[in-house]
């Protein structure tokens, strides 16, 4: 068949994922070169009330030429230094930022772990994370441009009201020339003889024609047509097929610069403070508990009156191949690990950025498609392993159930337990230090340490680590209150 250039991209979806995909494509391709049509398909699903990002928000804003301050202001945002966990009576923090105050020295993580193994003090890994120390006291600051070591330690994301975030993006998209079409449903998908989607019929008179399609719709309108019935892969450890969302008016809002995840008897409770409200997401199995029981349980845990916002059901699992023909299938219909750890938006964003790396000169482009899918699969498997770790921690120490979990995850755990190391992943989905923080937090303790530490005398190591710990504590104490920082930031 004759190759054709991509002149128009049609995106089907709704909410923030649709807007983000449109914004990234419009900005990077330029609508005068490639027309972007965002088909906003009416969805029965609840839009996510809150979006918590990682540090990728800064490059995303830079890429989209968005002002982070304006975005946070318009989306009632707060800042996020990482994730705080409470599980089986133990609490720990998984920071985005690095441990120690990195001035280029390598092996600091190993030095901290060795120090912790040598001393019986109250010290914990969190003491060596400026982000963890700040978050515990609800403090926050953005490091100055010249303070590289603080920038690394205080790497941050944001918590945003998703509806507002979506509006902000949509407004940017419209300014860039993205054409929006609002429809109730797609009535028909038309293919050419080569099996490529050429147009979608939206009603009796309206249709959209495009050379390439991105399907982020809730019911995978296009995906079902191009994936030839391939079903999602799903592991038995994957649980949490429903998310209930609640909010409270904010009187108990501590403006924690983090996302707070607590393991409960029914599943995970994720608490996020934004400026005016506290948002709750309860991730559980529908068969085991109903919404009213969850609501009562949250009120009892938080001692707050909460308001039910809605529910989202998860079709748990993932597709390993999401670019088929001239259609890229994204969103929860292509990967859904339950929303506890990774949001739908984070996958869509990552996929679009990867797609731009493999942006096709023309269709068909089998090699580009193959490598995109390979890269996508790598990212999804890294995410899957980290999600599996969250499931593993629930039963950690109670029985030996390693066999249930992905082998790559159990190998990572073994390596950490033996050598205090985390293998460098091939994707940026989860940083090695996040693995380390989680593994250590859940109670794993390494047996051995790198030989490189032999060059340092034990007493010298202890003294330098204690000094570091105290410097970090001092820095954290000197940081402004998160609430105060936010109000100053916007004034």
């Amino acid at each position, binding site marked *: 068949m004759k190759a054709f*250039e*991509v002149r128009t991209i049609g995106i089907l979806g709704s909410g923030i994922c649709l807007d983000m995909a449109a914004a990234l494509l419009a900005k*990077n*391709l*330029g609508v005068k*070169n490639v027309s972007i049509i965002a088909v906003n398909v009416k969805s029965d699903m609840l839009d996510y009330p809150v979006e918590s990002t990682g540090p990728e928000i800064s490059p995303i804003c830079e*890429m989209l030429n968005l002002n982070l301050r304006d975005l946070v202001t318009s989306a009632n945002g707060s800042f996020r230094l990482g994730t705080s966990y409470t599980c089986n009576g133990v609490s720990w923090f998984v920071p985005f930022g690095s441990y120690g105050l990195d001035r280029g020295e390598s092996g600091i993580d190993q030095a901290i772990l060795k120090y912790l193994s040598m001393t019986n003090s109250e010290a914990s890994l969190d003491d060596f994370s400026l982000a963890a120390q700040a978050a515990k006291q609800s403090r926050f600051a953005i490091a100055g441009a010249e303070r590289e070591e603080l920038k690394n330690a205080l790497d941050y994301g944001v918590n945003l009201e998703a509806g507002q975030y979506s509006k902000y993006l949509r407004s940017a998209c419209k300014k860039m020339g993205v054409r929006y079409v609002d429809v109730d449903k797609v009535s028909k998908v038309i293919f050419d003889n080569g099996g490529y989607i050429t147009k979608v019929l939206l009603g009796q008179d309206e249709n959209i024609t495009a050379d390439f399609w991105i399907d982020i719709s809730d019911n995978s309108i296009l995906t079902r047509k191009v994936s030839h019935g391939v079903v999602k892969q799903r592991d038995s450890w994957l649980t949490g097929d429903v998310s209930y969302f609640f909010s409270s008016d904010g009187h108990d809002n501590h403006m924690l610069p983090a996302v707070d995840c607590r393991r409960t008897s029914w599943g995970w409770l994720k608490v996020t403070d934004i400026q005016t409200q506290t948002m709750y997401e309860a991730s559980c199995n529908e068969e085991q508990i109903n919404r009213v029981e969850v609501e009562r349980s949250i009120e009892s845990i938080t001692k707050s009156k909460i308001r039910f916002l809605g529910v989202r059901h998860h079709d748990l699992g993932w597709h390993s191949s999401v670019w088929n023909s001239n259609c890229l299938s994204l969103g929860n219909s292509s990967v859904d690990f339950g929303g506890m750890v990774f949001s739908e938006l984070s996958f869509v964003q990552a996929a679009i950025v990867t797609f731009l*790396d*493999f*942006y*096709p*000169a*023309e269709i068909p*482009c*089998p*090699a*580009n498609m*193959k*490598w995109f899918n390979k890269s996508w699969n790598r990212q999804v498997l890294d995410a899957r392993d980290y999600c599996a770790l969250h499931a593993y921690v629930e039963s950690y120490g109670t029985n030996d159930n390693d066999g249930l979990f992905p082998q790559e995850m159990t*190998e990572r755990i*073994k*390596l950490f*337990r*033996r*050598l205090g*190391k985390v*293998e*460098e*992943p*091939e994707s940026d989905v989860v940083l090695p230090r996040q693995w380390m923080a989680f593994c250590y937090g859940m109670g794993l303790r390494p*047996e*051995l340490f*790198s*030989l*490189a530490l*032999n*060059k340092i*005398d*034990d007493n010298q190591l202890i003294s330098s680590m204690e000094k570091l710990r105290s410097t970090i504590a001092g820095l954290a104490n000197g940081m402004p209150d998160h609430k105060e920082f936010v109000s100053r930031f916007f004034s």
Partner: protein
Amino acid sequence: MLNRKVVILGGGTAGWMTAAALARYLLVPHGPMYSIELVESDGIGTVGVGEATLPHLRQFNEMLGIDENTFIRATGATYKLAIQFPGWGSACSSYIHPFGLAGHDINGIDFHHYWLRLYNSGRVSPYDEYSIAVLMAQKFKFQYPSDDIDSVLAEYGYAFHIDASLYAKYLREYAEKLGVKRTEGKVAQVHQDEECGNIQALVLESGETIPGDLFIDCSGFRGVLIEDTLKTGYESWQHWLPCDRAFAVPSQRVNSPPPYTRASAKKVGWQWRIPLQHRTGNGYVYSSAYINDEDAERLLIEGLEEDATAEPRQLRFVAGKRHISWNKNCVAIGLSAGFLEPLESTSIYLIQIAIQKLIECFPSAGITDVERGAFNRHLNTEYERVRDFIILHYHVNRRDDSDFWRYCRTMSIPDSLAEKMELFRENGRVVSYRKGLFMPASWLMVYLGQGLIPSGYDKRVDWFPIEEVERYLANYKALIDEESSKMPDHHLAISKANEIEHGVYPRAAFNLYGVKG
């Protein structure tokens, strides 16, 4: 079990690099008591491969606290910025693969896509000429790279051409000073634990028994411990890398040595030329299936630019690697772990990587599958990625002057390489990975240097006016041309390093392309 006694078998470059590095970390006054014993025989010659190195070696020296000027003096080193590859794409073509980048990304799109657009209209210089390291190499210039990330002077790294025997000798002194015990002798027998098969001791021809907890096999191709004793098995890659022999010969020194290695493709195989301060290293790598030994030796001598100073000596090898490098309580490092011809100067790098990984995973208490697995996985990846890159040089050729090149062009290649090439051919995309040596900058040099021009490129570059792209490339080339011309001559830089007791040089970056890489 506490692995307190480490025994290293073999004292070539691999053996003494391992001994020196382990001594640096194990034989420390305040740490646990370890001992390291290296067994070697003066009666067994060393191969002495790897005279051309990669920038990573600077990091190894830095780790050992070795001053760079001292190292240059001790090893007769010259600086190395690149490898020149005459005759690889076609018999009359030539390109340079530098330790540096070519051009800058523009608007988030890789430089080579802009180059490809201009290439199609014939309005562009050869791709390698957009690399400052290449221009420096062509002009015989050298200066330390800058650490100012915004400067074009930060777009390259450097390595050395060294006398590997002198390096081993230097490291021997270093290691012995730190307490490594050297024992002269040949291994007659190896004692193994009857139950688990672990090596317990080496018995020398003299009758002396050397017990140990952890054994490092640096015994060369033969793999006395990893293969003869533990029967680990060898994976041959000869069907992809058909060269199986080499002749090596030194020739006279040159007064103004080039700051690059030359790897010239010949009718069957290729010839290296490595300029040192005190001599020039030469060798001819060939396939015995396509040329006989006499002709190969003759071609080597005919291809020398200076008079030979010794008789050529022959090496035989099979490209490939052991199934695993760490088996039971034995770790193979160097040629005992695998052999890949020195086309891209990777021999010492592969030794270094194995040592550094061993330090990371050192089993100071017992040995478990966890560290063995982590070590073996890492080394497998490293070997396979180097392998694919070397095969690429052979496979992408348009030579029609021998069956050897025709075979290389049409042979089947590993899937991992075929997929990468397929992607490049389609759209000019280069696969990047995090583990392994050669990054897109290197792949591009070989692809484009050997004439593999993709059928497409990133269409987004068409959205910029062609005159603007042309002007940008011309300005960039003029800038690096000017900067490289201002630099001192390479031979003067060497003289300076020899004169100054301790050098002030940039910190080593653990990559091929300098600070910016």
